[in-house]
């Protein structure tokens, strides 16, 4: 990866940082479009493996950005992607917090919260579909997905159990 590529990754993460409304995971589809489709730095499989690894490890979901950066361009890529992802939103959050707290009952702030809620929902649904796409030809994968959704939706069990089951089934060649 050239320095120009690293800079492009940094700039894209700067933008995604400001677009990550409702969770870092909402930026997965666009990061995939940028890294896989537009630049070809990673294959779809490698990208999805990066997401899965970050989800399997403890810590904020956001760390998928570090793993994608790492797999695309090593340690420097991880640092570039993470600092790009954190810088703008940190500055903005610190500046806007007190303002937003004081005005949270005003019509404009309430409209923004209400208007963004269905967008967040749609982004999560899209992310789920994109993550499921590479394994969509395997019936066992659909069982895993459906089982995970049921488990997470209906019980308070830790997602570790589902991830463990997925690793086990996949490890024995099920997926």
């Amino acid at each position, binding site marked *: 990866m050239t320095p120009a590529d690293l800079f492009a990754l940094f700039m894209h993460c700067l933008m995604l940082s400001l677009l990550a409304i409702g969770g870092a995971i909402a930026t997965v589809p666009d990061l995939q479009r940028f890294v896989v489709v537009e630049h070809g730095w990673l294959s779809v499989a490698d990208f999805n493996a990066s997401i899965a690894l970050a989800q399997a490890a403890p810590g904020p979901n956001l760390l998928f950005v570090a793993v994608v950066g790492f797999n695309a361009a090593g340690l420097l890529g991880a640092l570039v992607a993470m600092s790009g992802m954190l810088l703008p939103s940190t500055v903005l959050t610190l500046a806007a917090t007190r303002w937003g707290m004081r005005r949270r009952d005003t019509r404009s702030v309430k409209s923004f919260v209400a208007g963004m*809620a269905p967008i967040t929902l749609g982004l999560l649904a899209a992310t789920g579909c994109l993550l499921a796409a590479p394994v969509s030809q395997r019936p066992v994968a659909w069982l895993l*997905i459906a089982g*995970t959704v049921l488990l997470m939706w209906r019980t308070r069990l830790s997602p570790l159990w589902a991830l463990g089951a997925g690793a086990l089934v*996949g490890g024995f060649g*099920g997926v």
Partner: protein
Amino acid sequence: MPDNVEGVAPRPHPGSPADLFVAFTRLALMGFGGVLPVAQRELVERLGWLTQAEFAERLSIGQVLPGPNVINLALIIGDRYFGLRGAMAAVGGMIAAPMVLVLILAAAYGGLADIPAVAGAVRGMGAVAAGLVMAMALKLLPTLARNPLGRALWAPIAIACAVAIAGLRWPLIAVLLGLGSLSCAAAWWKLAPTATESETGP
């Protein structure tokens, strides 16, 4: 632990930015597949730094602002106690140790990727990750029941958003600026002080 938490005892709070760093490192390392539920248990129930209501309030603000939710939450909580130093300590704690860990895993995985069982295990976890995200979407549905947009508006908006992103592969910024501002404008209209209060269904 004393049980007089309801009384006049002063509210527990972090004594220094280092306390914040340790607390957020701890909760981040316990958060497999999502830090938010752990953050609530640690900050509200174990440490007592925030009430449930305060936690929910800060979370909703963290969600509205751009940037990862849990990072914003850490910033807001850290900032409340020690200003910028506190915010940096909380976010640093949230990220530093887990990032080192996940990069070690990523490096190890690079060497292991040729082993079929490992590749299969990661594919299996990928399927589960898809399920985890779908479940998050399902869990959001109840919160939309009180959305002023009403289902007749929020459902088509959410579906259009999912189709534009996953189906048509539109860039996120186009969807947020286009569909997002449309949705906010609709909410603004619905939240009008006097009009249309009575005729919409439950």
